[in-house]
């Protein structure tokens, strides 16, 4: 391997997304280094995916050797911020992920036009899920969530829009209520998995849950 190639590979391996001009010039003349660059970019895509650990995994049988330290820190903060609750809410990786997902699709709550039955059926088919609610569905998208495609829907109730995600692959033994930022939600056991319902904080939806759950077939 030439010195130029060796230099190029260190530069590519060091920062594949920002290679210096002389390496770019070298790539134009060296097929082997071009291939190395393409491979490294591909590896980096996998690397990112690998590093972005699902936070749900953190809830699985985590040992807690330093738990007392964490509690002391929490108490210190309570004194410090006096009433700010954000640090003391129950750890809920699933809630984090659900809200994060909802926040990534802010337009989903804007639509008021019902989704056509065909479009809804297509989304449900892609997710391999059956759902038939009495509420008008004004948004439906097949979304990746924890390695599966799930139907992300918005239904219109008398109290306002509700995001509904049918999580067939997320087993839930008991209902869990959560408040995250501007959102309030609940994860309920449904069928062999669960269903997540999210509303804007302050919006009542307890009375609508029965109707939402009825949709799960």
């Amino acid at each position, binding site marked *: 391997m030439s010195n130029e190639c060796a230099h190029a590979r260190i530069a590519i391996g060091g920062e594949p997304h920002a290679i210096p001009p002389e390496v770019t010039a070298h790539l134009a003349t060296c097929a082997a280094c071009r291939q190395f660059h393409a491979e490294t970019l591909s590896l980096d895509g996998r690397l990112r995916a690998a590093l972005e650990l699902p936070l749900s995994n953190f809830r699985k049988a985590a040992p807690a*050797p330093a738990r007392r330290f964490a509690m002391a820190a929490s108490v210190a903060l309570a004194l410090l911020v006096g009433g700010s609750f954000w640090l003391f809410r129950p750890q809920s990786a699933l809630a984090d992920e659900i809200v994060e997902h909802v926040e990534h699709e802010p337009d989903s709550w804007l639509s008021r036009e019902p989704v056509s039955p065909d479009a809804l059926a297509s989304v449900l088919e892609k997710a391999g899920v059956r759902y038939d609610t009495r509420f008008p569905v004004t948004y439906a998208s097949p979304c990746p969530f924890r390695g599966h495609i799930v139907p992300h829907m918005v239904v219109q109730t008398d109290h306002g829009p509700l995001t509904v995600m049918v999580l067939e692959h997320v087993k839930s033994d008991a209902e869990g209520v959560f408040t995250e930022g501007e959102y309030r939600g609940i994860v309920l056991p449904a069928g062999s998995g669960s269903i997540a319902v999210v509303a804007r904080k302050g919006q009542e939806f307890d009375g609508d849950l029965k109707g939402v759950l009825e949709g799960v077939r």
Partner: protein
Amino acid sequence: MNPRPRGTTAGAPFARLLEMLRPDLVRFAFWLARDRAVAEDVVQETLIRAWKSREELKDQAAARPWLFTIIRREHARLYERKRLPTVDVETVEALGDPALASDGDAGLEDLRRAIMQLPDEYREPLVLQVLGGFTTGEIAADLGLTQAAVLTRLFRARNRLRVIYGLQAAEDAE
């Protein structure tokens, strides 16, 4: 009433910002500590320190690298203060830590295990770059290294992972 000075960080938006960034803080702390409980503690301590120092953050766009830097320091400080034993990677691997699990993607899980087994001096800059979005110059400044040293470490980290990914490793005089 005195208006809030421009550029300072008000409590509620800052709390929301921390909430938004928290998942990546937990991930970064985990990749540093390779232990979930320690990672959670480091993040807790980081959030407390960030809250106390929130007036120092003049630009919210800089919050992410700022918090990552605090994580690094808190991680180092925790080990100094608590004299925690370092994590034995072989033990972590043998336990099959669920944090590394991936639904149906064995390749991704293998890659995670390979990252876990990278030496600290390779893993840390790699995570800062790929997960934290730091440039090599920023990593060099943060770790007190030359930029050339950082580039070499990143090259070697990726070179080791290439094999796991089924690629041929580049020649290296390591």
